[in-house]
């Protein structure tokens, strides 16, 4: 089975997001960087499938040279190859990003064959455009479902050739089940697995892995029908809350239940 996992380097989520003075970027001077959480799960999914069905997995990121850190992180948990599509500048919009990724994937596939499965994250943790994977899949003419929280290969298949992949998408009441013909694409969500941490030996081995840099151009027609552009970033308006303290300790229980009654949930 040949798998490609796409990852994006983002400031490690969890902290308050500050904005640079020019209001164009997230100020990441205090932040570490990570693989966008959904995509981190995508890497784990790729590793698990390879462990079960054999084959090899490649990780690819489009971004600045420092994205090497995230590529090596993926290699340190079991991905065998890594490819950087350098942006050499500011991040691209979803149309241009998708277009460049398509070019890169085509080149990789020309060299080593088709990827049976391409795994995207449902959306990036930072910009959250919800579309790059879908655009890429469409351009490649492959089936694509987003929001996936479960992947398995049907019995008797090995995840390659004319086989299928069963993808589960979580909805309010349970799961929707899709069965996509290979080669296929999926966008996965956190929760599909609990990504493993690298081992020390994995980390040390990843340092020796070769980084392939693949410079590609976005299709000149990517914006033929228009484009979106970021003007500025800003913090959402803070709604100042006056907290009403209902009490200290268990004596406050009646006040709490009064509130529940007032809100009509009792």
């Amino acid at each position, binding site marked *: 089975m040949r798998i490609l996992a796409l990852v994006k380097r983002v400031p490690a*989520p969890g902290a308050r997001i500050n904005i640079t003075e020019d209001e164009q970027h997230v100020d990441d001077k205090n932040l570490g960087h990570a693989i966008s959480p959904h995509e981190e799960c995508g890497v784990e999914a790729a590793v698990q499938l390879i462990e079960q069905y054999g084959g090899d997995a490649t990780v690819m990121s489009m971004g600045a040279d420092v994205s090497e850190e995230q590529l090596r992180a993926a290699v340190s948990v079991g991905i065998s190859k890594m490819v950087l599509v350098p942006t050499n500048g500011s991040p691209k*919009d979803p149309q241009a990003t998708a277009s460049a990724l398509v070019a890169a994937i085509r080149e990789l596939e020309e060299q080593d064959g088709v990827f049976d499965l391409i795994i995207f994250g449902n959306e990036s943790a930072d910009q959250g455009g919800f579309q790059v994977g879908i655009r890429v899949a469409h351009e490649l003419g492959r089936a694509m479902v987003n929001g996936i929280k479960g992947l398995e290969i049907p019995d008797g298949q090995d995840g390659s050739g004319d086989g299928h992949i069963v993808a589960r998408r979580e909805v309010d009441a349970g799961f929707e089940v899709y069965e996509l*013909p290979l080669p296929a694409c999926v966008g996965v969500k956190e929760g599909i697995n609990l990504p493993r941490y690298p081992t020390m030996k994995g980390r040390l081995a990843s340092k020796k892995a070769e980084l392939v840099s693949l410079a590609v151009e976005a299709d000149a027609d990517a914006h033929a029908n228009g484009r979106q552009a970021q*003007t500025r970033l800003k913090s959402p308006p803070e709604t100042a809350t*006056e907290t009403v303290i209902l009490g200290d300790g268990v004596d406050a229980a009646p006040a709490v239940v009064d509130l*529940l009654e007032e809100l009509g949930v009792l």
Partner: protein
Amino acid sequence: MSAVLVVIEHDRGHVPEATLEALTSARSIAGGLGLPVHAAAMGEGAEMVASQVGEYGAEVIHHLTSPNLGDYNPEAWGQALVGCVSSESPAVVMASGTDRGNELMAQLAARAGLPFVANCVDVAPDVSSMTRSQWGGALHEEATLDAEIKLISMAPHTVEASPGPAAGRVDEIAVDVDDSLVRSVIRDRVVLSEGITLSTAPVVVSGGRAVGSEEAFAPLEALAEELGGKVGCSRAVTNNGWRPHADQVGQTGTRIAPTIYIATGISGATQHWVGAMGSKNILAINTDPEANMVTKAGWAVIADLHEMVPAITEEVKRRKG
């Protein structure tokens, strides 16, 4: 005839609240542009949505038909939308920024070669600029959109759905959907829980790291059950393996919007807050009066959750008699 076209992301005829929100937003956008609101629905059960969609403001409901349209199928539905857009030439196509809404808009955008701006929280009258949410709502981006047909989705809970009756005339349009796209249809469903879910529950009782263990969630379960609600948790809890990820409230978990969110032992980091901030009321229970969750909540009790949660449950039971 130009219009603001709303994509109806129904599930076998059931229209979620999010779509009603999108219709509500669409009415004000359409009002600004002097255009009517139209809707597009397709697939299994589409014929059932007309009255509800009309009640929320759609003058026309384009019922897209093709032998290859059935249960939800992002690719097939996306291509169907391309057909509708090319025949109707709407000025704006929009959906709610849910998983399905964004997916369908992205499918449409990819196939039509159009830009698509996801999760808007505010849109300029001419829809050429907007504010959209990044980082799950922790950050806002002002953006411009330059396209003949403007594709956007509205971040969930941006507005409250409100009716605004319109004609709701159904107009069937036969669209082309490639046979090959049948590949992406829902093949099966696994139902795990009937009734309310975390994202629809009127009450969510949530626990953070301070709960301490998997077993210690039992009192939270008891309270949620008494109140007809669901149990949620913070990311620290799922990372510790105490609760399944499906229970996680947060940026990478579920966005909730209950009548009341009872957050116990949760400090309120940004990652969690963006998932909880859609709640209509928040009650924080924490030993630390300075915890973020406490200062952001409308109500708070300074107490140890391990004592407080059972006490509330007892009181609720007492009043229920």
